[in-house]
């Protein structure tokens, strides 16, 4: 449906600014593709070339098999375009604006009468069709802009930042609408807001400095570019000599484990990072229950598209431990005596049963965070004097604060210099 080959666009004197550089991608019929990139990445320039508004400096772009430069008029008839600024005549009524668009596209009166109420209903304009555009809110104007783009029944819908400037509820409504539109049109939607793209697009093209930095579904990008997934375990293992190394060996034997990193001890808790290919929390939990380890933390971490976007587009190494992860974090202090012996295969759910049986756990919910004080964990008898450590961020060692250490004295406010009285 859309074929872009080696597209380059230069701006400025002597082509000093390369807005897009050797861009190539293909979009099939019925795909909803998100164009993602920071401001200035070349999203709008690419969309403008596809709509025939801008010519490319080199390369070719074809929409529905037609060259956007040579068959510009025919291409424009097949495209519904909503620019970022949502241009509308403010002195017209909504239905007049729709009629203007119908005339521009050479629609017959009967087609207009058939399509106008349909698109008004589709975008949720309701009884606003006789309202003056100048009196509408930003969100309502966005809907009118979408209706204008949809009116001529375009095969391809190109939307540049369609949720820009909207409040959260309006954004949600526009997202819902875009998902609906995806069933009937090939949609290319650009945004620099990642959740917008994740919510509506099956496929994501990330642009950075005018080049394609990544292209694929969100899951593909995460699995290909996201780096490792891991389970983070903080547990009190008991006073026995070599408990940490034994625990590490046991953890390494779990199916699906690639490696286990011993990240040292904070207070009574040993910290392990288990690099794995899938979520092994239930297996680790079952093992902990079996061995009587008092778990303080058990969480599964995997990189999100947001981190990949930041890493690729903004050219800095993402910090997965500081950014939000997926899955639940469970902080518990369970005396070993109360934990029944249990064993099961990976994913058997034994861990959940065990934890819920104690009455101290709740089923993990995605994106849920429960932060507990380490004082909740029982110190192992005979262990070294325990420091009272408050874990600010359970995923990062560097973010602990030792409460037993003297607090830094707060800076005294400096009194303003006294003014000399005249």
């Amino acid at each position, binding site marked *: 449906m859309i074929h872009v080959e080696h597209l380059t666009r230069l701006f400025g004197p002597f082509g000093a600014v390369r807005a897009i550089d050797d861009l190539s991608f293909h979009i099939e019929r019925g795909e909803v593709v998100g164009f993602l990139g920071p401001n200035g990445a070349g999203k709008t320039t690419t969309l403008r070339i596809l709509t025939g508004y801008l010519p490319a400096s080199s390369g070719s772009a074809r929409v529905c098999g037609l060259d956007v430069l040579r068959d510009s008029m025919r291409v*424009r008839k097949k495209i519904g375009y909503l*620019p970022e600024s949502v*241009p509308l*005549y403010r002195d017209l009524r909504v239905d007049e604006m729709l009629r*203007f668009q119908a*005339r*521009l596209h*050479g629609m017959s009166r009967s087609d207009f009468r058939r399509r106008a109420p349909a698109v008004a209903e589709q975008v949720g304009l309701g009884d606003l069709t006789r309202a003056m555009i100048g009196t509408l809110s930003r969100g309502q104007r966005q809907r009118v802009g979408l209706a204008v783009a949809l009116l001529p029944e375009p095969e391809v819908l190109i939307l540049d930042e369609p949720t820009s400037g909207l409040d959260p509820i309006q954004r949600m409504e526009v997202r819902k609408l875009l998902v609906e539109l995806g069933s009937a049109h090939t949609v290319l939607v650009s945004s620099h807001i990642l959740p917008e793209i994740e919510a509506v697009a099956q496929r994501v093209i990330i642009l950075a400095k005018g080049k394609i930095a990544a292209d694929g579904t969100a899951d593909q990008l995460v699995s290909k570019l996201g780096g490792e997934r891991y389970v983070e375990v903080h547990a009190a293992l008991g006073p026995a000599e070599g408990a940490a190394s034994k625990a590490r060996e046991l953890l390494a034997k779990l199916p699906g484990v690639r490696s286990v990193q011993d990240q040292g001890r904070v207070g009574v808790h040993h910290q392990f990072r288990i690099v794995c290919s899938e979520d092994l929390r239930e297996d680790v939990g079952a093992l902990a229950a079996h061995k009587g380890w008092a778990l303080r933390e058990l969480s599964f971490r995997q990189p999100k598209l947001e981190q990949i976007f930041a890493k690729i587009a903004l050219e800095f190494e993402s910090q997965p431990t500081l950014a939000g992860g997926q899955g639940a974090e469970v902080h518990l202090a369970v005396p070993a005596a109360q934990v029944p012996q249990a064993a099961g295969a990976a994913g058997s759910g034994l861990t959940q049963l065990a934890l819920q049986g104690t009455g101290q756990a709740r089923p993990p919910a995605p994106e849920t965070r429960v932060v507990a004080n380490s004082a909740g964990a029982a110190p192992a008898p005979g262990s070294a004097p325990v420091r009272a450590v408050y874990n600010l961020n359970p995923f990062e060692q560097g973010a602990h604060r030792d409460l037993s250490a003297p607090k830094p004295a707060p800076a005294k406010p400096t009194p303003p210099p006294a003014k000399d009285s005249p």
Partner: protein
Amino acid sequence: MLLSGSWTIYRRELAGLFLGPLAYVLLGLALFVNGQYFTVYLKEVSGEVTDALTLSGGVSVVYWILMVVLPPLVTMRMVSEESRSGMLELLLTSPVSDAAVVAGKLVAAVTFMAVLWSSNLFYGLLCHFLGTAPDWPALLVMFAGSVLVSALLCAIGLCCSAATSTPILAAFLGLVANVVLLSVPYLAGQLGLGERHWLVRTLSEVDLVSRHAASFMRGVLDSRHLAFFLAWTVFFAFVTTRLIESRRWKT
């Protein structure tokens, strides 16, 4: 095919002009000034309606002042404002050519000016029904001359609007261009170089006031002058189209 869609643009522009307050201010001003001068001249020419209408609506200094000032005010927003608001992007990504966009806008501006100058026809009609019929062919040729001069100056104004992104600057540039176009041939004649001097002869060829428009104001429809106005109007419309195209490269 080249101009398909221009009718839609024309209707929209005309509606835009008449929906704004500026149109009524300009129309009121023109109606008042023309009416005032028509009354004054009617007394001076001893009730000769056609002469009075010719003086008030084609020869007087006030007529030419209105002719210099009004077209830039009418056309100043047509491209610059639409470019700023993003409407131009919507138009230029619709299945309508750049030439059709310019043609629609230009004809709308000329229509507005024609409505403005039609006050003379209204006064002529009024006198006709009151018992003194004017020389209608001469009056209509004079009206056609006013429309042709307006078309040229509107095309220049539209060109200025396409060259800038600020309506006020477009109006100023258009005003300056009109003043230069109308006054330079006259000023060259005042330099004392003689009628045969190449500069005077060259500038007299583009003398709107005393050469090209004057024949219309006398009620004479001369095809040379008709061709002059049409050719230069089309030329400036073409330049406007190229300026809009160049925005695509600069954007």
